[in-house]
Protein backbone atom coordinates (compact mmCIF):
# COMPACT_ATOMS: atom_id res chain seq x y z
CA UNK A 1 0.00 0.00 0.00
CA UNK A 2 1.29 3.42 -0.88
CA UNK A 3 1.11 6.54 1.18
CA UNK A 4 -1.83 7.82 -0.87
CA UNK A 5 -3.80 4.65 -0.31
CA UNK A 6 -3.26 3.04 -3.68
CA UNK A 7 -2.12 -0.54 -4.02
CA UNK A 8 1.40 -1.14 -5.29
CA UNK A 9 0.07 -2.14 -8.69
CA UNK A 10 -2.65 0.50 -8.96
CA UNK A 11 -2.30 3.15 -11.64
CA UNK A 12 -2.42 6.81 -10.87
CA UNK A 13 -5.43 8.71 -12.20
CA UNK A 14 -4.97 9.56 -15.86
CA UNK A 15 -6.29 12.63 -17.65
CA UNK A 16 -6.23 12.70 -21.43
CA UNK A 17 -6.59 15.94 -23.41
CA UNK A 18 -7.03 15.38 -27.12
CA UNK A 19 -6.47 18.10 -29.68
CA UNK A 20 -3.84 19.54 -27.34
CA UNK A 21 -2.06 21.51 -30.07
CA UNK A 22 -3.57 22.45 -33.40
CA UNK A 23 -0.80 21.85 -35.93
CA UNK A 24 -0.42 18.06 -35.90
CA UNK A 25 -3.08 15.77 -37.26
CA UNK A 26 -3.23 14.24 -33.81
CA UNK A 27 -2.05 15.79 -30.57
CA UNK A 28 -2.61 14.54 -27.04
CA UNK A 29 -1.61 15.63 -23.56
CA UNK A 30 -1.41 12.66 -21.19
CA UNK A 31 -1.28 13.49 -17.49
CA UNK A 32 -0.60 10.91 -14.82
CA UNK A 33 -1.08 11.77 -11.18
CA UNK A 34 -0.38 15.17 -9.70
CA UNK A 35 3.24 15.96 -10.22
CA UNK A 36 3.18 19.60 -11.14
CA UNK A 37 3.22 18.59 -14.81
CA UNK A 38 6.53 16.80 -14.35
CA UNK A 39 4.82 13.52 -15.20
CA UNK A 40 2.95 14.76 -18.24
CA UNK A 41 3.62 13.66 -21.77
CA UNK A 42 2.64 15.03 -25.16
CA UNK A 43 2.20 12.95 -28.26
CA UNK A 44 1.90 14.25 -31.79
CA UNK A 45 1.17 12.23 -34.89
CA UNK A 46 1.43 12.96 -38.56
CA UNK A 47 0.54 10.98 -41.64
CA UNK A 48 2.82 10.75 -44.64
CA UNK A 49 1.23 7.90 -46.53
CA UNK A 50 -0.58 4.68 -45.87
CA UNK A 51 0.29 1.58 -47.77
CA UNK A 52 -1.12 -1.85 -47.22
CA UNK A 53 -1.30 -5.09 -49.14
CA UNK A 54 1.49 -6.26 -51.41
CA UNK A 55 3.24 -2.94 -51.49
CA UNK A 56 3.20 -2.71 -47.72
CA UNK A 57 4.63 -6.21 -47.42
CA UNK A 58 7.32 -5.48 -49.96
CA UNK A 59 8.40 -2.50 -47.95
CA UNK A 60 8.72 -4.63 -44.88
CA UNK A 61 6.58 -5.22 -41.87
CA UNK A 62 8.55 -3.74 -39.07
CA UNK A 63 5.49 -3.39 -36.88
CA UNK A 64 6.23 -1.37 -33.87
CA UNK A 65 9.76 -0.28 -33.38
CA UNK A 66 11.79 2.31 -31.63
CA UNK A 67 12.47 5.05 -34.17
CA UNK A 68 14.19 8.20 -33.05
CA UNK A 69 13.84 11.21 -35.27
CA UNK A 70 10.39 10.29 -36.37
CA UNK A 71 8.55 12.10 -39.12
CA UNK A 72 5.90 13.77 -37.00
CA UNK A 73 3.81 16.62 -38.28
CA UNK A 74 4.60 19.02 -35.50
CA UNK A 75 7.42 21.26 -36.59
CA UNK A 76 10.09 22.37 -34.18
CA UNK A 77 9.10 20.05 -31.38
CA UNK A 78 11.82 18.33 -29.46
CA UNK A 79 11.31 14.60 -29.63
CA UNK A 80 13.32 13.12 -26.84
CA UNK A 81 11.95 9.72 -27.52
CA UNK A 82 9.82 8.49 -30.36
CA UNK A 83 8.15 5.26 -31.34
CA UNK A 84 6.58 4.15 -34.53
CA UNK A 85 3.27 2.53 -33.97
CA UNK A 86 2.45 1.41 -37.43
CA UNK A 87 3.70 -0.50 -40.39
CA UNK A 88 7.00 0.81 -41.69
CA UNK A 89 10.25 -0.50 -43.05
CA UNK A 90 11.56 2.07 -45.46
CA UNK A 91 13.80 4.75 -43.97
CA UNK A 92 13.12 7.24 -46.74
CA UNK A 93 11.17 10.13 -45.24
CA UNK A 94 8.60 10.19 -48.01
CA UNK A 95 7.91 6.52 -47.44
CA UNK A 96 7.19 6.85 -43.77
CA UNK A 97 3.76 5.39 -43.43
CA UNK A 98 2.32 6.54 -40.18
CA UNK A 99 4.30 7.95 -37.36
CA UNK A 100 3.71 9.14 -33.86
CA UNK A 101 6.29 11.25 -32.12
CA UNK A 102 6.35 11.70 -28.39
CA UNK A 103 7.96 14.21 -26.12
CA UNK A 104 7.90 14.77 -22.38
CA UNK A 105 7.41 18.21 -21.03
CA UNK A 106 10.76 19.93 -20.80
CA UNK A 107 10.05 21.72 -17.58
CA UNK A 108 13.00 20.41 -15.64
CA UNK A 109 12.42 22.87 -12.81
CA UNK A 110 8.97 21.45 -12.21
CA UNK A 111 10.45 18.00 -12.37
CA UNK A 112 12.97 18.85 -9.70
CA UNK A 113 10.40 20.54 -7.52
CA UNK A 114 8.36 17.37 -7.58
CA UNK A 115 11.42 15.49 -6.34
CA UNK A 116 11.41 12.97 -9.14
CA UNK A 117 14.67 11.17 -9.71
CA UNK A 118 15.38 9.40 -12.95
CA UNK A 119 14.19 5.85 -13.10
CA UNK A 120 16.47 2.93 -13.85
CA UNK A 121 17.75 3.10 -17.36
CA UNK A 122 17.09 6.79 -17.59
CA UNK A 123 13.33 6.76 -17.93
CA UNK A 124 11.07 8.99 -15.95
CA UNK A 125 7.41 8.26 -15.90
CA UNK A 126 6.85 11.28 -18.12
CA UNK A 127 8.30 9.10 -20.85
CA UNK A 128 5.77 6.40 -20.27
CA UNK A 129 3.14 9.14 -20.45
CA UNK A 130 4.33 10.46 -23.78
CA UNK A 131 4.26 6.97 -25.29
CA UNK A 132 0.61 6.63 -24.39
CA UNK A 133 -0.03 10.14 -25.63
CA UNK A 134 1.57 9.43 -28.97
CA UNK A 135 -0.45 6.29 -29.54
CA UNK A 136 -3.74 8.07 -28.91
CA UNK A 137 -2.54 10.94 -31.13
CA UNK A 138 -1.83 8.51 -33.92
CA UNK A 139 -5.27 6.95 -33.67
CA UNK A 140 -6.80 10.41 -33.79
CA UNK A 141 -4.68 11.36 -36.79
CA UNK A 142 -5.68 8.25 -38.70
CA UNK A 143 -9.33 8.83 -37.87
CA UNK A 144 -9.16 12.21 -39.57
CA UNK A 145 -8.06 10.75 -42.88
CA UNK A 146 -10.66 10.71 -45.65
CA UNK A 147 -12.12 7.34 -46.52
CA UNK A 148 -10.87 7.67 -50.10
CA UNK A 149 -7.49 9.02 -51.13
CA UNK A 150 -8.13 12.55 -52.43
CA UNK A 151 -7.20 12.87 -56.07
CA UNK A 152 -5.65 9.45 -56.09
CA UNK A 153 -4.55 7.76 -59.28
CA UNK A 154 -5.56 4.18 -59.92
CA UNK A 155 -3.72 1.32 -61.54
CA UNK A 156 -6.02 1.59 -64.54
CA UNK A 157 -4.60 5.02 -65.24
CA UNK A 158 -1.18 3.54 -65.81
CA UNK A 159 1.94 2.83 -63.85
CA UNK A 160 2.11 5.13 -60.91
CA UNK A 161 4.24 5.12 -57.80
CA UNK A 162 2.60 2.87 -55.28
CA UNK A 163 2.30 5.58 -52.72
CA UNK A 164 -0.13 7.39 -55.03
CA UNK A 165 -2.07 4.24 -55.82
CA UNK A 166 -5.44 4.20 -54.10
CA UNK A 167 -5.36 0.41 -54.14
CA UNK A 168 -3.04 0.58 -51.19
CA UNK A 169 -4.79 3.34 -49.31
CA UNK A 170 -6.14 1.70 -46.18
CA UNK A 171 -6.39 3.92 -43.12
CA UNK A 172 -8.32 1.31 -41.17
CA UNK A 173 -5.48 -1.16 -41.45
CA UNK A 174 -2.66 1.25 -40.82
CA UNK A 175 -2.19 0.87 -37.09
CA UNK A 176 -1.04 -2.67 -36.54
CA UNK A 177 -0.71 -2.79 -32.78
CA UNK A 178 -0.92 -0.82 -29.58
CA UNK A 179 1.84 0.15 -27.18
CA UNK A 180 2.19 1.21 -23.59
CA UNK A 181 5.12 1.45 -21.22
CA UNK A 182 5.67 1.45 -17.49
CA UNK A 183 8.61 1.47 -15.16
CA UNK A 184 8.55 -1.12 -12.41
CA UNK A 185 10.75 -1.79 -9.45
CA UNK A 186 11.21 -3.50 -6.13
CA UNK A 187 10.75 -1.49 -2.99
CA UNK A 188 10.99 -3.01 0.45
CA UNK A 189 10.92 -6.40 -1.21
CA UNK A 190 7.70 -5.81 -3.14
CA UNK A 191 7.23 -5.25 -6.84
CA UNK A 192 5.40 -2.19 -8.00
CA UNK A 193 5.35 0.48 -10.59
CA UNK A 194 8.13 3.00 -10.48
CA UNK A 195 5.86 5.75 -9.32
CA UNK A 196 6.16 4.25 -5.88
CA UNK A 197 9.87 4.49 -6.10
CA UNK A 198 9.89 8.07 -7.21
CA UNK A 199 7.96 9.02 -4.14
CA UNK A 200 10.14 7.12 -1.71
CA UNK A 201 13.59 7.81 -2.97
CA UNK A 202 16.37 5.63 -1.69
CA UNK A 203 14.31 2.55 -0.94
CA UNK A 204 14.24 1.18 -4.43
CA UNK A 205 16.55 -1.61 -5.46
CA UNK A 206 15.74 -2.13 -9.15
Amino acid at each position, binding site marked *: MRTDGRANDQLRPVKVTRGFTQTPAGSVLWQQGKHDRAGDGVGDAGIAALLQGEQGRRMGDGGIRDAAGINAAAQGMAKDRAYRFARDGDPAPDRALTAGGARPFKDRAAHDRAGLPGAAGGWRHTETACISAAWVALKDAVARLPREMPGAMSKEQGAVPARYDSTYYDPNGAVVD*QLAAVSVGVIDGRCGWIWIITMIRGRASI
Partner: protein
Amino acid sequence: MNVALTASGRYVEVQGGAENGQGFDRATMNRLLDVAERGCQGLMARQNEGAGTVIGIT
Protein backbone atom coordinates in the same frame (compact mmCIF):
# COMPACT_ATOMS: atom_id res chain seq x y z
CA MET B 1 13.07 -1.63 -14.89
CA ASN B 2 11.43 -0.09 -17.91
CA VAL B 3 9.06 -2.14 -20.03
CA ALA B 4 7.26 -1.27 -23.26
CA LEU B 5 4.70 -3.85 -24.31
CA THR B 6 2.27 -4.19 -27.18
CA ALA B 7 -1.36 -5.21 -26.97
CA SER B 8 -0.43 -8.44 -28.72
CA GLY B 9 1.90 -9.24 -25.85
CA ARG B 10 5.24 -8.53 -27.49
CA TYR B 11 7.99 -6.67 -25.71
CA VAL B 12 9.28 -3.61 -27.51
CA GLU B 13 11.74 -2.68 -24.83
CA VAL B 14 12.96 -4.10 -21.53
CA GLN B 15 15.76 -2.39 -19.72
CA GLY B 16 16.80 -2.26 -16.12
CA GLY B 17 19.44 -2.99 -13.55
CA ALA B 18 19.91 -3.74 -9.87
CA GLU B 19 20.66 -0.66 -7.84
CA ASN B 20 21.11 -2.32 -4.49
CA GLY B 21 24.53 -3.80 -5.19
CA GLN B 22 23.21 -7.32 -4.67
CA GLY B 23 21.46 -8.12 -7.92
CA PHE B 24 18.12 -9.82 -8.25
CA ASP B 25 17.00 -13.30 -9.11
CA ARG B 26 14.90 -14.73 -11.92
CA ALA B 27 11.82 -14.99 -9.76
CA THR B 28 11.97 -11.27 -9.06
CA MET B 29 12.44 -10.59 -12.75
CA ASN B 30 9.32 -12.60 -13.53
CA ARG B 31 7.35 -10.76 -10.87
CA LEU B 32 8.45 -7.44 -12.29
CA LEU B 33 7.36 -8.45 -15.77
CA ASP B 34 3.99 -9.58 -14.41
CA VAL B 35 3.48 -6.21 -12.76
CA ALA B 36 4.65 -4.38 -15.87
CA GLU B 37 2.24 -6.35 -18.05
CA ARG B 38 -0.69 -5.46 -15.83
CA GLY B 39 0.39 -1.84 -15.86
CA CYS B 40 0.66 -1.67 -19.63
CA GLN B 41 -2.71 -3.34 -20.04
CA GLY B 42 -4.24 -0.78 -17.73
CA LEU B 43 -2.71 2.07 -19.68
CA MET B 44 -3.84 0.62 -22.99
CA ALA B 45 -7.38 0.34 -21.67
CA ARG B 46 -7.19 4.02 -20.83
CA GLN B 47 -5.75 4.80 -24.27
CA ASN B 48 -8.71 3.10 -25.90
CA GLU B 49 -11.25 5.36 -24.26
CA GLY B 50 -12.23 7.57 -27.15
CA ALA B 51 -9.06 7.16 -29.18
CA GLY B 52 -9.59 7.20 -32.90
CA THR B 53 -12.82 9.15 -32.91
CA VAL B 54 -12.71 12.29 -34.94
CA ILE B 55 -12.32 15.47 -32.96
CA GLY B 56 -11.61 19.05 -33.84
CA ILE B 57 -12.51 18.86 -37.51
CA THR B 58 -11.07 21.87 -39.31
